């Protein structure tokens, strides 16, 4: 079934045109989808071992809602983040006092950790520097860290969103 995901990905890569000239023609997409299937399944077969137990995200419906609102919060944070980074960089006196703070994480499936790390990097003021495995905590380099907690608690909000999303 991750071959199936690859078939969908193949649809994306080929860029089949669905709505060309008004109504959607599914025929072409379906043809492309079958090609994706024949291409995706061998790749899945090749990398069967690769995706270690990607959590079969059994889509209990609450996780779907969590994923949706995670995506919207993420997009919004993305926009605001870069504005004040841009503002912080462009203002003549650079109000930055960078320091490294250490954030212990509550999630421990490594897909969750990765999404947390990436979303942190994209949200304002923090960059994940390092992650050490046995303490399960992130070293975050904050650029405008006046106090650690104001940096830590947006990370917590991301976490309990991710907890719901990956439901463990």
């Amino acid at each position, binding site marked *: 079934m991750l071959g199936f995901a*690859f078939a969908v*990905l*193949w649809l994306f*890569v*080929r860029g089949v045109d669905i709505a060309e000239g008004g109504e959607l023609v599914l*025929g*072409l997409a*379906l*043809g*492309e989808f*079958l*090609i994706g299937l024949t*291409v*995706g399944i061998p*790749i899945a077969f*090749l*990398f069967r*071992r*690769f*995706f*270690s137990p*990607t959590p079969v995200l059994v889509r209990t419906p609450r996780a779907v809602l969590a994923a949706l609102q995670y995506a919207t919060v993420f997009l919004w944070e993305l926009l605001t983040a870069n504005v004040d980074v841009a503002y912080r960089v462009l203002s003549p006196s650079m109000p930055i006092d960078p320091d490294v703070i250490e954030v212990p994480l509550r999630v421990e499936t*490594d*897909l969750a*950790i*990765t999404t947390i*790390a*990436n979303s942190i990097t994209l949200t304002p003021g923090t960059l*994940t520097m*390092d*992650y*050490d*495995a046995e303490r399960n905590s992130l070293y975050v380099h904050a650029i405008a860290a006046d106090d650690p907690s104001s940096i830590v608690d947006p990370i917590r909000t991301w976490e309990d969103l991710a907890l719901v999303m990956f439901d463990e």
Partner: protein
Amino acid sequence: MSRYGDDTTVIARTATRIVSPIIFVTAIALLLQGHNLPGGGFIAGVLTAAGFALIYVIFGVDYVQDTLLHRDVEPAFGIPRPALAADYRTMFALGLLVAAGAGVVAMFFADTGFAFLGQHDWLYDVKPLFKFHFASAFAFDLGVYLVVVGGLLAIVSVVGAE
């Protein structure tokens, strides 16, 4: 699951896990749409090689070897250390064979020279869905693809295991 991860954090690993299927699917896409969009065997081969190089960089050769292809590590005689090099050699030899074979086979079809007059693309299409015209220039592209992948991967894995 064996031993690594001393200096690649989980983020890098899962990022690679997420990105590398995209690389491979893109490479295959570039191969398949070689004919009427920018693509072809070279770029597909080089891109797949880059994808594998990324995997070697993140996961290391041995991890790829024994978990991906569970080949035992001991190289047969006369092969440098990663035993993968042995079947990269067969891969690029196979690629050469496919490329040359595509040429020679076309020689018999239209009894012309060693190449492919406009490909008699056997489009076997079950008519309601797709029509997939399978060019025999594609056979040549496939040969080029296999050669480039085998060659570059042999180079990277041998030099990498160095």
